[in-house]
């Protein structure tokens, strides 16, 4: 894989939500959903965003798609800053960035047939001129994701969850995008169906040279699918680097606890008590001063309270902890 070419890059990307009271008047409080995130996505790789609920991983994914307007920062896609693009300009970008959503029941219009669902992007972007051309492309796409092309005139409710997710994937592939943002694409599915979809995503990536931004909270799934992972906590990046390296030797204490919290499939390896992270995720309205993880971190010292750790490089990896690499 060619790791030199950056497909998409964010610089200091920030999203803050203004809280309002019941009369719509601004309060002083702000929800810090994503705070100053700078990441790079290389061509042809799968970068996973991992973290617990409320860490800002989905917000970041949606920011890249401009489904949410960023408060600050740049989104550089193929050399162009798309953060300030108008809707018309974005329409051109959507040919190259597409998204797969979490809930296969809610993300497909129940009144549209598969023909329309998959064909819609082809028609709006004027890729296919005639009806026959559209139908042919839709059937090709259906074949590619493993749904029999004869089912082209069915409605979403006639399919199972796994098949609907396949339709969602076909829809995302319709315009031959470069980058697909996958927001928890398998977390609503059963184990046996989940593995089918994961394998399909991997095969499609090989076949079509796709780049994935894969958002998930399941560390097993993430290990399987990604080349690099980015661990987030409360709107900030904790650690980013090659999957194997991070799983073998996590530098940030949060990554370490996250990995240890996953119930192992090996009954011989029962969890030890000291490996359980205490406390809960702090509120994004009033994040702790300094390092945002410090209230849950058993290693927190005085400096963590006063100074915010920067994302420092350790070889191919980056981690945001004052004591990372110190052992």
């Amino acid at each position, binding site marked *: 894989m060619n790791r030199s070419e950056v497909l998409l890059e964010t610089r200091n990307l920030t999203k803050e939500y203004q809280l309002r009271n019941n009369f719509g008047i601004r309060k002083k409080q702000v929800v810090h959903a994503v705070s100053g995130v700078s990441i790079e996505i290389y061509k042809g790789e799968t970068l996973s965003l991992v973290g617990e609920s409320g860490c800002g991983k989905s917000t970041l994914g949606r920011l890249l798609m401009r489904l949410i307007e960023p408060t600050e920062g740049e989104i550089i896609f193929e050399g162009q800053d798309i953060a300030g693009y108008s809707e018309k300009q974005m329409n051109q970008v959507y040919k190259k960035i597409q998204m797969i959503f979490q809930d296969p029941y809610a993300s497909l219009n129940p009144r549209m047939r598969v023909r329309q669902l998959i064909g819609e992007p082809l028609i709006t972007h004027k890729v296919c001129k005639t009806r026959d051309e559209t139908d042919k492309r839709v059937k090709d796409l259906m074949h590619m994701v493993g749904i029999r092309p004869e089912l082209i005139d069915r409605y979403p409710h006639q399919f199972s969850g796994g098949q609907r997710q396949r339709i969602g994937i076909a829809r995302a592939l319709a315009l031959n995008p470069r980058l697909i943002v996958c927001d928890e694409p398998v977390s609503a599915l059963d184990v046996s169906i989940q593995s089918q979809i994961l394998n399909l995503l991997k095969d499609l990536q090989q076949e079509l040279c796709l780049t994935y931004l894969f958002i998930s909270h399941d560390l097993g799934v993430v290990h399987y699918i990604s080349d690099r992972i980015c661990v987030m906590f409360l709107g900030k990046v904790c650690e980013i680097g090659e999957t194997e390296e991070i799983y073998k030797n996590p530098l940030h204490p949060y990554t370490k606890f996250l990995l240890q*919290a996953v*119930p192992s499939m090996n009954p011989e390896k029962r969890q030890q008590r000291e490996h359980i992270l205490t406390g809960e995720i702090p509120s994004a309205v009033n994040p702790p001063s300094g390092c945002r993880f410090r209230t849950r971190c058993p290693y927190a010292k005085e400096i963590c309270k006063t100074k915010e750790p920067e994302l420092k490089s350790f070889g191919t990896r980056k981690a945001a902890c004052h004591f990372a690499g110190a052992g």
Partner: protein
Amino acid sequence: MEDALLQIRDLHTTFYTRDGLVRAVDGVSIDIAAGESVGIVGESGCGKSMTAMSLMGLLKKPGKVDGGTILFDGQDLTAMAPKDKRKLMGNRISMIFQEPMTSLNPVITVGRQVQEALLLHKREMSRTEAKNRVIQVFQLAGIPDAAKRYQEYPHQLSGGLRQRVMIAMAMVCDPGLLIADEPTTALDVTIEAQILHLMKQLQEEKGTAVMMITHNLGVVAQFCTRLYVMYAGKVMESGTVQEIFKNVCHPYTEGLMRSVPDMESKERLYNIRGMVPSMLHLPKGCRFCPRCQYSMARCFDQEPGLYEPSPGHFVRCFLFEPEKGEEKP
């Protein structure tokens, strides 16, 4: 098992729908000894929750238990009068539900909701005593500032805390059996680890038996001593966790284990082909055969019985049928 606390024998639960009969639970037998933790594993629609609902008497119409016995402490729950059953539920048998958000009443403080169980089942207890007991259980369940939390409403608590309240509610009467229906599915991994640890601790201290219903094999490997794997309303495999994870027999269990990505290898995931059959149109013969990689001709018209390849390990698959010669008369 002779000394079992709970003995489910050949339980049948059927839904009489307009489109036909749905046998959600089709001849399930489960034993749970006192103080034991048993996992019930399967994908959605396999009947694992319905088994628990039948046990608790929470089935909604058109569902009905129409066969089998559920013996708890020697009493048959299926034949019991509703009045006697109410004395048992929430007291000797209690349940934790999956959604901590929807299973608490939003307009009553959490303390009172937990107290309700005590006031109903322990009539001799005064309100003050009950309140003190609830605060004590809150502390046991790891709720910080228990006295303050007692007066709070569910929306003021996070998901993890709400699940702790649910656990406190289930444990407040010191039940003999706790049914946990996907207790950690809606929670984050670090919170999940906390909750599992808490449940384990309470179980060891109080000697409560736990029936853990889950789709997560990792949770079973970490928490349970024995497990039952269900598929389309039937138990396909059962045995101790140690035995099944080391020496898996049923093709479905094997497929299930191999399709979960673990954090050690990056080998291509195994796919169980096809999908879970509709409960209205079950395949003839073995229910798993259309998806099974080892299926033989006879799997398509005969239903396999339960065979015992090693002591205590039962498998519903012809591959493990003892040879005719070996069979004892």
